């Protein structure tokens, strides 16, 4: 070390005062430090081997050379101090840089001391150098780290602070001040620091955390909000931890990171996510996203409601095979794969979806492939609109059209019946009147008048029948009431008691007392009366009439069956005419061909349906169908 240089100089002087210069030279040569003696012209007079070795001067003639010839890059300050030294100015030091033989950067520290003769005249400069390369390098490294640290803090927006418990002194680093938007000369204290935190959760949390750190040594790391001096709200990551000395907490050290941008971005992302979620959950559409294996990776509320789940997340990872009957799932899966393989979307396709409970929903479905960067599909987005209601309305409309056209047909048919019947009567009148006018024979005249009366009676009867039919078809708004079928059957059989007894007819009623039909009571009575009397009227002469009554309730429809063991009807011949007007099929004097026609009209007026099956010689079965809800 060069600290002791005044002693050193004294020693040198002793040696050099020796008249034997050779000896002096020899002594300097062996000095354990790198030392050189420069003349008043700053030429090297003596130099230690260490000095010469250190600077690799051995190949040159060092002695007698001016020092600045040896150190061509010498700094101005060194040059100045050397010159000052010659003027008797006391020692000073400095660091010089040079490049060694290996082209490595080296640094040395120089110390200049004036060289006095025995008369205290300055005769030169004593120069000592020490290699400080490592020290300089270390210092540079430290500098660099400091810079790096500062830069990092700046980029990451991390400030630091510490709070000295003994002195109750709080120190903020530059960055911490910057985060708080306070000037660099701002002096914080622990109370104002806490007041920077936003009132409420943030301030309460930091106060509590600081308290716990001081009293219990618990570190903290919290996401909080501060309000800067400029009134800006900022999200910060505030962390702090106690520092111990001799088992005592002496300092709380902490960091403060400005994470406002990240948190704002996060909040924004969350908000848009919530917006998107709210949007898709409240769309009146089933929305789903499936992966390549058709497993659902996103579904909305409508879809989870449709599939009977409480929350959309319960559906994630499931596929249609987990949720729907096999057939429906297979169709959907095939469709998915087609969309993903062809990369072509399916748009607005009408699909029916049957669920496990058998309910069928009609959807207008679109499936759009989600195409990844590599051009292959990584899934699909599906959107389904439930059009069951529209479908049902369509169906109802179609039914209505069918009913209307049926009614129209019936009307045309009825018009023909009316026209035909009235025409045949009027033709008879016309013909008979023509005869009457031209007839001379009194007896024959009387005969013709008798026939005219008969024709008139027939016309009246026909008009009555037609009136009845019109009444049935126009009084469809008569109130329908729920009627216990068996009560009505009981009433009818009571009324027919004598008739049934005369013909030895038996009624076997297998109908349950619970069967209730929505009907117009008078019509039901007339219908039952007609079927039962027909069964007896057209009995097979070889056996006593037996009438079986049955009822069956299926799918909101009640079927009532009336079976007899009568003559039966040849369905091939008469099937299409059975319920026609004025059609009779047996040689029965009472047959007017109006009963079944009216019965059919009455049943249809109540939105019912009637069918018959029959075999000649065995009997007939009439079946009526009534819907519970029209």
């Amino acid at each position: 070390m060069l600290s002791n240089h005044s002693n050193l100089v004294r020693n040198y002087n002793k040696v050099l005062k020796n008249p034997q210069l050779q000896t002096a030279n020899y002594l300097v040569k062996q000095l354990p430090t790198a030392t050189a003696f420069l003349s008043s012209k700053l030429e090297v007079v003596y130099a230690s081997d260490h000095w010469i070795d250190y600077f690799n001067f051995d190949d040159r003639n060092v002695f007698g050379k001016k020092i600045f010839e040896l150190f061509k890059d010498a700094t101005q300050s060194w040059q100045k101090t050397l010159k000052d030294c010659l003027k008797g100015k006391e020692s000073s030091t400095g660091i010089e840089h040079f490049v060694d033989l290996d082209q490595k950067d080296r640094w040395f520290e120089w110390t200049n001391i004036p060289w006095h003769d025995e008369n205290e005249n300055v005769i030169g400069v004593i120069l000592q150098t020490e290699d400080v390369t490592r020290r300089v390098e270390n210092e540079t490294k430290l500098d660099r780290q400091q810079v790096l640290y500062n830069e990092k803090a700046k980029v990451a927006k991390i400030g630091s602070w510490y709070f000295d418990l003994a002195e109750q002194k709080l120190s903020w680093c530059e960055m911490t001040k910057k985060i708080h938007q306070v000037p660099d000369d701002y002096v914080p204290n622990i109370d104002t620091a806490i007041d920077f935190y936003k009132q409420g959760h943030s301030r309460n949390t930091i106060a509590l955390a600081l308290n716990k750190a001081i009293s219990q040594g618990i570190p903290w790391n919290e996401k909080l909000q501060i309000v800067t001096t400029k009134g800006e709200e900022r999200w910060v990551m505030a962390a702090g931890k106690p520092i111990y000395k001799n088992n005592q907490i002496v300092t709380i050290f902490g960091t403060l990171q400005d994470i406002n941008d990240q948190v704002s971005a996060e909040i924004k992302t969350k908000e848009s996510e919530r917006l998107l979620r709210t949007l898709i959950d409240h769309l009146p559409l089933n929305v789903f996203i499936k992966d390549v294996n058709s497993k659902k990776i996103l579904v909305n509320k409508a879809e989870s409601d449709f599939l009977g789940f409480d929350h959309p997340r319960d559906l994630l990872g499931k596929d249609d095979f987990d949720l729907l009957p096999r057939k429906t799932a297979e169709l959907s899966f095939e469709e998915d794969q087609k969309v993903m393989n062809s990369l072509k979307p399916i748009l607005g396709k009408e699909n029916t979806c049957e669920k496990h409970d058998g309910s069928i929903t009609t959807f207008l479905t679109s499936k759009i492939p989600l195409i990844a960067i590599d051009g292959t599909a990584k899934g699909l987005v599906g959107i389904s609109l439930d059009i069951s209601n529209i479908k049902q309305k369509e169906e109802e409309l179609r039914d209505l059209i069918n009913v209307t056209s049926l009614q129209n047909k019936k009307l045309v048919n009825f018009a023909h019946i009316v026209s035909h019947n009235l025409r045949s009567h009027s033709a008879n009148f016309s013909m008979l009147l023509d005869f009457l006018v031209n007839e001379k024979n009194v007896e024959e005249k009387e005969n013709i008048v008798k026939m005219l009366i008969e024709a008139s009676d027939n016309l009246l009867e026909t008009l009555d029948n037609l009136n009845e039919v019109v009444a049935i078809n126009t009084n469809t708004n008569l109130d329908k009431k729920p009627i216990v079928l068996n009560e009505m059957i009981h009433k009818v059989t009571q009324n027919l008691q004598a008739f049934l007894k005369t013909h030895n007819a038996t009624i076997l009623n297998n109908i349950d007392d619970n069967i209730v039909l929505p009907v117009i009571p008078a019509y039901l009575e007339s219908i039952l009366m007609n079927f039962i009397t027909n069964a007896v009227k057209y009995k097979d002469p070889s056996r006593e009439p037996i009438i079986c009554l049955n009822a069956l309730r299926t799918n909101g429809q009640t079927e009532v069956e009336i079976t007899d063991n009568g003559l039966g009807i040849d369905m091939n011949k008469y099937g299409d005419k059975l319920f026609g007007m004025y059609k009779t099929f047996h040689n029965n004097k009472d047959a007017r061909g109006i009963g079944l026609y009216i019965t059919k009209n009455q049943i249809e007026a109540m939105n019912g349906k009637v069918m018959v099956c029959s075999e000649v010689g065995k009997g007939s079965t009439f079946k009526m169908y009534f819907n519970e809800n029209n």
Partner: protein
Amino acid sequence: MKTINSIYIVDDDPITVFGIKKLLSNVIQCDGVESYGNGKLAIDAIKEVLSNQKSLPDIIFLDINMPIMDGWQFLEEFIQLSINEKVRVNIITSSIDPADLERWEHYRNNSKHLITYNNKPVKREKMQEITKAV
């Protein structure tokens, strides 16, 4: 000209039967006028005549709407019978239903017999025309 020996009236309405008979008596001299209440009775009678090799009716007055067997069902069976003579069949009806006219067209074109379609009431002139021998 061939004389008319036998006429069948197939109709369930006694007034019409009476009327046709009366009109016939004014335009033609024929003793063999028979009436049948429905198609079944008439076709049975014809079948019996055929099996006994007696003479068939020259003219048949046929109603359409009748019980048991109507006019069309009668025609259906009648045109299947192997009859050498050409028989005149006069449909007498009050129906103006186009469907009935179509069916008449059908039978007229598928039979060697002369089948006419006449709306009631039948006037004397008409009766004269449709009682001519074929």
